């Protein structure tokens, strides 16, 4: 059912043709459902955001009658904001995006019944977890550290939702293996390679959270076991909890590497290097989680230091990405007549939101990555751990690098999937720029407050003591409050564009008017393994590398967790919200 176009190594890849129109329509539909569900979650989550920003601006709006009628407390609002934006939006978007891309890139048929089943199961999990969240029965924040105890319905719903993503892993890996069998000796095309590597990384990463929720928290919340060891739970949580940020950011990397050069009018720098980057992430993303636990007792400093070292190493593939994508942009700008050491930047299409969104997301990620190095250093961490610095940090990483990239993707992906048109390029462009500016201002305010000593996720605007009124934080508080307003305006513009687009009529054939924006390549990986470079041949056996990744995690976590279990101290649950 698929035909391959004539192969040319430097040309942009042409999407293999799928002749079965009904299958293609169904594949597009399930992808659209994932993406739209993701953005509905983001819509609700983002609307709660300004309430948090105003709190850090010293203004408590949780006592106003309207808000009080909807949310029991700041902490319930914050739980919803975190779960919807960081966990639901990302996972649904990625499950759609990284199911669709490899299926199209390889031109493979997948079992659509299974794909729909997975979507429905994930949504049922989401709706199940939503009930206790909305009724203030799971006000645990998105880290849900025990022994603060929530309704078992929350843990079960969350387990079903997160567990469903593993079904996507299975479907994508199985599809890739079928392609490998059908195409012996071939090099996996780049987009499919990156997608499969990302899913494999997520499978290894998610194990910690799955074990925590299924084997520890669900039995405990149902009363089957008397207590829970908070440190074991927290350690398993961060097994997943740090790698999950790479699960959020790697799909953005895929767009930066594969599609951004096209939006800019440039070329991918080097396919072998991109493959190396993704293999480094597959191997190294997970055994780094202890750097979130420098402040925790009873985990030896030696293990923490080893995880710190591995965390520094994971900066390398990100630095390679910064190099490659910047080179792609320079290539594009010079092709458009750009000149000079920095002058070429002016030649880039800054008014085009499919371009500006990922590029501004990257700029944000450079700053976020630098801050991340600070967080990962055990010597710096005690100064900023659990201060407002941390939400400042992750709003310019997941909140901008990931979210703004996904917003930009939606502007070509929705037209591609549905044949509908973006109603206003100018409004979309304004939404992208204001999101970037709002997040920069927010991050400045929050990093600053954190350095002074303001803790994260606390209703500081209603603190009885005068501590925060006495701190020199008037300027950062003002910045944070203003940023909440900028971001609200940005969100209104973005969602207006998105919903108007979704509610409009189909006018185009998305395959023709908004094809998958593949880019030309300067240094291709080639098509046949036999003639490929050593780097391409080393990176191709992803199954074996997946095994190595799992082994590395077991080596770096096994002894730590075994020791925690040997000394487990179960404590009872509490509900203090």
């Amino acid at each position, binding site marked *: 059912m698929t035909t391959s176009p004539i192969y040319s190594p430097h040309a942009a890849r042409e999407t293999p043709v799928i002749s079965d129109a009904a299958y293609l329509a169904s594949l597009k539909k399930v992808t659209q459902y994932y993406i739209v569900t993701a953005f509905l979650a983001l819509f609700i989550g983002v609307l709660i955001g300004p309430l948090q920003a105003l709190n850090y601006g010293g203004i408590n709006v949780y006592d106003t009658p309207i808000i009080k009628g909807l949310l029991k407390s700041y902490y319930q609002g914050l739980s919803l904001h975190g779960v919807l934006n960081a966990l639901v939006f990302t996972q649904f978007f990625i499950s759609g995006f990284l199911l669709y891309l490899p299926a199209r890139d390889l031109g493979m048929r997948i079992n659509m019944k299974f794909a729909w089943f997975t979507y429905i199961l994930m949504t049922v999990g989401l709706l199940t977890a939503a009930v206790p969240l909305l009724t203030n029965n799971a006000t645990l924040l998105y880290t849900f550290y025990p*022994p*603060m105890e929530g309704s078992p319905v929350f843990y079960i719903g969350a387990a079903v939702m997160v567990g469903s993503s593993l079904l996507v892993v299975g479907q994508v890996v199985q599809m890739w293996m079928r392609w490998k069998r059908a195409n012996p000796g071939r090099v996996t095309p780049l987009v499919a390679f990156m997608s499969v590597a990302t899913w494999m990384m997520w499978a290894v990463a998610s194990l910690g959270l799955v074990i925590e929720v299924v084997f520890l928290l669900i039995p405990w919340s149902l009363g089957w076991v008397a207590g829970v060891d908070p440190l074991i739970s927290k350690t398993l949580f961060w097994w997943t909890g740090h790698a999950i940020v790479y699960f959020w950011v790697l799909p953005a990397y895929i767009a930066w590497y594969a599609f951004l050069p096209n939006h800019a009018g440039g070329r991918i720098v*080097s396919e072998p290097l991109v493959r190396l980057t993704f293999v480094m992430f597959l191997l190294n993303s997970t055994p780094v989680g202890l750097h979130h636990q420098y402040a925790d007792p*009873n985990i030896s400093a030696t293990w923490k230091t080893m995880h*710190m070292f591995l965390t520094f190493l994971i900066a390398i593939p990100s630095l390679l990405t910064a190099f490659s994508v910047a080179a792609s942009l320079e290539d594009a700008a010079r092709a458009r007549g750009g000149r000079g050491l920095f002058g070429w930047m002016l030649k880039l299409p800054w008014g085009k939101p499919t371009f500006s969104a990922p590029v501004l997301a990257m700029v944000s990620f450079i700053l976020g990555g630098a801050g991340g190095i600070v967080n990962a250093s*055990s010597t710096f961490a005690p100064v900023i751990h659990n201060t407002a610095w941390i939400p400042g940090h992750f709003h310019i990483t997941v909140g901008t690098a990931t979210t703004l990239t996904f917003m930009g993707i939606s502007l070509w992906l929705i037209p591609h999937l549905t044949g509908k048109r973006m109603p206003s390029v100018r409004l979309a462009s304004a939404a992208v720029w204001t999101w970037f500016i709002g997040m920069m201002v927010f991050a400045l305010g929050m990093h600053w407050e954190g350095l002074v000593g303001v803790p994260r996720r606390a209703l500081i605007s209603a603190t009885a003591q005068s501590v925060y009124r006495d701190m020199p934080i008037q300027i950062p508080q003002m910045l944070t409050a203003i940023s909440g307003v900028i971001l609200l305006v940005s969100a209104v513009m973005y969602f207006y564009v998105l919903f108007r687009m979704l509610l409009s009529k189909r006018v185009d054939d998305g395959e023709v008017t908004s094809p998958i924006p593949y880019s030309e390549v300067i240094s291709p990986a080639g098509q046949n393994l036999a003639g490929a470079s050593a780097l391409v041949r080393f990176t191709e056996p992803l199954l074996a590398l997946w095994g190595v990744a799992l082994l590395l995690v077991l080596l770096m976590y096994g002894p730590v967790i075994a020791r925690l279990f040997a000394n487990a101290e179960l404590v009872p649950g509490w509900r203090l919200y």
Partner: protein
Amino acid sequence: MNQRLDHHTLEKYENIWFGIATVMALFLFVTVLASFFSGTYPSLTGEGGHHITGVKNGRLNPKNFAATPFATPGLRQNADGTYEAFVVARAFQFEPAVLKVPVGKPITIHVTSADVLHGYFIEGTNINTTAIPGQVSSFTTTFRRPGTLNVICNEYCGTGHHNMINGVKVEVQEP
């Protein structure tokens, strides 16, 4: 001159950049290690890092502090002249509410929780540890200036979390 980038130039730059990135990561690691060994921040100990009555492997029963020094939180001076302080975090206060410590003396502080997770963060310092029910966090530090510092709970612990603020009073000892 407006040539587009080619494979060979890029490969050269790539390798240089890769080298710089690797050296940077290693340099960071070495500097952190140096700081670790020179003791510029209070390193946490647990499991055998302390010998407290009723505490085994850094663990204790949070419902039974009676068998441990956490039954009477506060500062004490040991027979050998060293100082130890015991702090209990409990929704939504620290015990003792004001920990009095002498200026310029090394003090080992032990922190635990009676209920959920709490954070033990002393404003303006790099003292920042988690108070976990069933576990003891211990670290040694020296307060060099007299005065009162805020102790802020920086881990979500329920509706009163933002009011969980107490203090450390650093005092000049009478000779």
